[in-house]
């Protein structure tokens, strides 16, 4: 017990020291800055667009597109790495770019772990970019594909069994492992198949082809992994046939080498400080999991083999395995905690765990591990002492452990494909887009449409068009959106043709959502098999607004200046601001000059009461006023106006109306 206390104490010290000392993992290349900046207006046309990411990116696999306002691709060449700056990508632009708004679509492949991030932003040359995608929106991170997760499950499960065959087989079973040839062949084949499946999933997800992938930094890591797993497979064949105890370590060495290759090619290598410490912890984590869970497979096979042969259960071997499992669980707890704290960005960031898919998956994985430990305890203390008399309970529990282990491998595979919480944006952003999802009547095609920023005016539309059954890109020849405001007969419909970017993604920039309200958006997808229409509905969200208030002195109204972006301001005030007859003034300005309005609807709502639409008069093209009577209390005032050039302006402010 004293020894245990020493071990636990040392473990806690190691966890705390390493957690405090190590920087967070980044894993997933997020855009830190750009030149020109998101939303910037530049006076002279830039010759390059340069993007700076949070970690090194693979230039050969990453994509940067610069589109003009009509959706045309205008960049002059492919994205290239900036010399000496592995975190930067640059794309050259044609000389003398005309004034206008330009959208930059980027898709970055991390050189550290090959994971993909993507997003778009806009800048203006000589003009304001208007309603652009905001910088606070998190990058789009494709979720782990089924193929990717399946490949990793096979790889991890296979390597775990192979490592356990060498390590647990040598210590607990004296080198005489059950069903040796078949076990090694199946495990090695599963690992090899898993590595190959992962490679092809990567090719599909990156969309760059096998050749370009293998020539990239990411591809080099896959080649190392494949070589080591292939070596493990050959060693397993040889060891399976040799049937002596001295060849087993070769399998263990190659399997642990493959585990190291995965540790180098995963999140651990993206740690901002002491990456090799994190890689070492990840490697030990892999091996301890292998010894524990792979050892369970060995035990299950041994019991089954002995039972079929009518021999007594291998109680001594299982007791020795129990000791190995004990230390393995301790080691994986320590290394897992080091890795988890690093991925989450420090102990203080644990509170963000459930804010991300990564955190939720990690919590589920830990929960499954707790279940596994509990099942192990049941077998150790309940089933094992009775194994000579009755092996049914032991076999049932170990079966449950193997099912839980397989689930654990699945969550681990998913976990290593998700962006860690430490790489998530620093604060939860407000919604910066609106989206809708639907399918055609015959359920052949699915469309997920996102409009950014989702406010009336200019929006970037991004549609993911996938096959209904497989979820793979549908590969249409064209995609078009037809817009019609619901409940409005005065505004006609409009269409917007989308342009294929990559995979299932089609995008375009348009001002089709010109009014506040709900829109019917019919997506027409032309596929080789025929044309389908997917009906969708989008409801615009209120635009962000910044209000500055000039508090007047005695007899003066409070004057609200509401900045709606793109140089547009609504100046409004309630005169006199006390109960009784009042005037509700609204004046529109663009860049400080009068902005003519075609119409304005002014309404007032007393707290807890119904909204009143006020009769308003136009005093000047940009100035409307409503004469009304207000009672004392907290009021909300709403303004919805349309400019003569068709833009919709929407603003809200609140004011307490005092007693006269």
């Amino acid at each position, binding site marked *: 017990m004293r020894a*245990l206390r020493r071990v636990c104490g040392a473990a806690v010290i190691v966890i705390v020291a390493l957690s405090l000392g190590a920087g967070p993992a980044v894993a997933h290349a997020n855009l830190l800055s750009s030149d020109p900046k998101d939303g910037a207006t530049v006076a002279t046309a830039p010759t390059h667009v340069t993007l700076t990411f949070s970690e090194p990116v693979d230039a050969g696999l990453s994509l940067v597109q610069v589109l003009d306002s009509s959706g045309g691709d205008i960049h002059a060449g492919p994205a290239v790495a900036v010399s000496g700056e592995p975190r930067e990508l640059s794309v050259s632009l044609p000389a003398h770019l005309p004034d206008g708004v330009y959208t930059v679509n980027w898709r970055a492949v991390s050189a550290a772990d090959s994971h993909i991030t993507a997003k778009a932003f806009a800048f203006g040359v000589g003009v304001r970019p208007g309603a652009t995608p905001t910088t606070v929106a998190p990058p789009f991170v494709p979720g782990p594909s089924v193929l990717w997760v399946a490949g990793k499950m096979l790889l991890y499960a296979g390597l775990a069994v192979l490592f356990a065959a060498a390590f647990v087989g040598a210590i607990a079973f004296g080198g005489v492992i059950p069903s040796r040839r078949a076990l090694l062949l199946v495990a090695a084949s599963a690992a090899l198949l898993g590595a190959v499946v992962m490679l092809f999933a990567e090719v599909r997800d990156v969309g760059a082809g096998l050749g370009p992938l293998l020539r990239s930094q990411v591809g080099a890591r896959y080649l190392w992994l494949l070589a080591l797993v292939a070596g493990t497979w050959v060693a397993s064949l040889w060891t399976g046939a040799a049937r002596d105890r001295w060849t087993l370590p070769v399998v263990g060495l190659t399997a642990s080498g493959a585990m190291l290759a995965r540790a180098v090619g995963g999140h651990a290598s993206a740690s901002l400080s002491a990456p090799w410490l994190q890689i070492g912890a990840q490697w030990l984590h892999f091996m301890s999991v292998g010894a524990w869970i792979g050892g369970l497979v060995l035990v299950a096979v041994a019991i089954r083999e002995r039972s079929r042969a009518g021999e007594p259960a291998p109680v001594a071997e299982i007791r020795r395995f129990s000791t190995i499992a004990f230390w393995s669980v301790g080691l994986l707890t320590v290394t897992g905690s080091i890795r988890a704290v690093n991925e989450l960005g420090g102990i203080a960031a644990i509170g963000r765990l459930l804010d991300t898919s990564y955190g939720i998956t990690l919590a589920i994985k830990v929960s499954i591990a*707790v279940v596994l430990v509990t099942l192990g305890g049941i077998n150790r203390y309940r089933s094992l002492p009775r194994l000579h008399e009755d092996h049914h309970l032991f076999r049932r529990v170990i079966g449950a452990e193997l099912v839980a282990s397989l689930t654990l491998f699945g969550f681990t595979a998913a976990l290593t494909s998700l962006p860690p919480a430490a790489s998530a944006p620093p604060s939860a952003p*407000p919604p910066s887009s609106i989206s809708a999802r639907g399918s055609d009547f015959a359920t052949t095609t699915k469309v997920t449409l996102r409009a950014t920023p989702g406010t009336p005016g200019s929006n970037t539309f991004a549609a993911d068009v996938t096959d209904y059954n497989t979820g793979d890109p549908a590969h249409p020849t064209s995609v078009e959106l037809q817009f019609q405001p619901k409940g409005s007969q005065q505004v006609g419909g409009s269409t917007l043709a989308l342009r294929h970017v990559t995979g299932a993604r089609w995008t375009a920039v348009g001002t089709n959502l010109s009014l506040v309200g709900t829109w019917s958006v019919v997506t027409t997808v032309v596929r080789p098999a025929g044309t389908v229409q997917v009906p969708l509905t989008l409801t615009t969200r209120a635009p962000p607004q910044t*209000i500055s208030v000039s508090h007047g002195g005695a007899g003066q109204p409070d004057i609200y200046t509401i900045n709606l972006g793109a140089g547009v*301001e609504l100046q409004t005030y309630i005169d006199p601001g006390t109960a009784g007859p009042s005037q509700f003034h609204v004046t529109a*300005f663009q860049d400080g000059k009068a902005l003519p309005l075609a119409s304005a609807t002014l309404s007032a709502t007393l707290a807890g009461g119904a909204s009143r639409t006020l009769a308003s008069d136009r005093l000047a093209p940009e100035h409307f006023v409503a004469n009304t009577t207000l009672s004392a209390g907290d009021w909300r005032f709403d303004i919805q106006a349309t400019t003569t050039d068709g833009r919709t302006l929407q603003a*809200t402010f609140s004011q307490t109306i005092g007693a006269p």
Partner: protein
Amino acid sequence: MTNRLRALFIAAALVLTMVACVSNSSTSGSAVISTASGPRPSSTGKLSIISPATGEVLPAGDVTLKVKLTGATIVAASSTHLVPDQGHLHVILDDNLITMTGSTTTILPNVASGTHLLKVEFVANDHAPFDPRVIAATSFKVK
């Protein structure tokens, strides 16, 4: 070994629970940012109502409003560029803002019979008052 294993279970459960049991600290962003801006400018203008005179009784129909503005000029253009001696007039009849004007003489059409309170205010280029307000008032009666 039994005690070791039991103790390790407890230690492992504590560490795992620490990682797994966390609070959700999501924040909600607000689309409105409110800041204070500076005070309104004061004007050099002086305003008075020449006609109708206080207590004047007028025949039914249109009423001619005449004002005198000194120290400032009336400009037509609206902007957020505020100049102390530039602006225009808002005309408030019986607490209703009925018109804005860029002239010192304005016709108020079809004023109903009765006693009326008429206020005229010289406002800045952005349609909002100066501080202090430049305002003149009178009352008259329509037969």
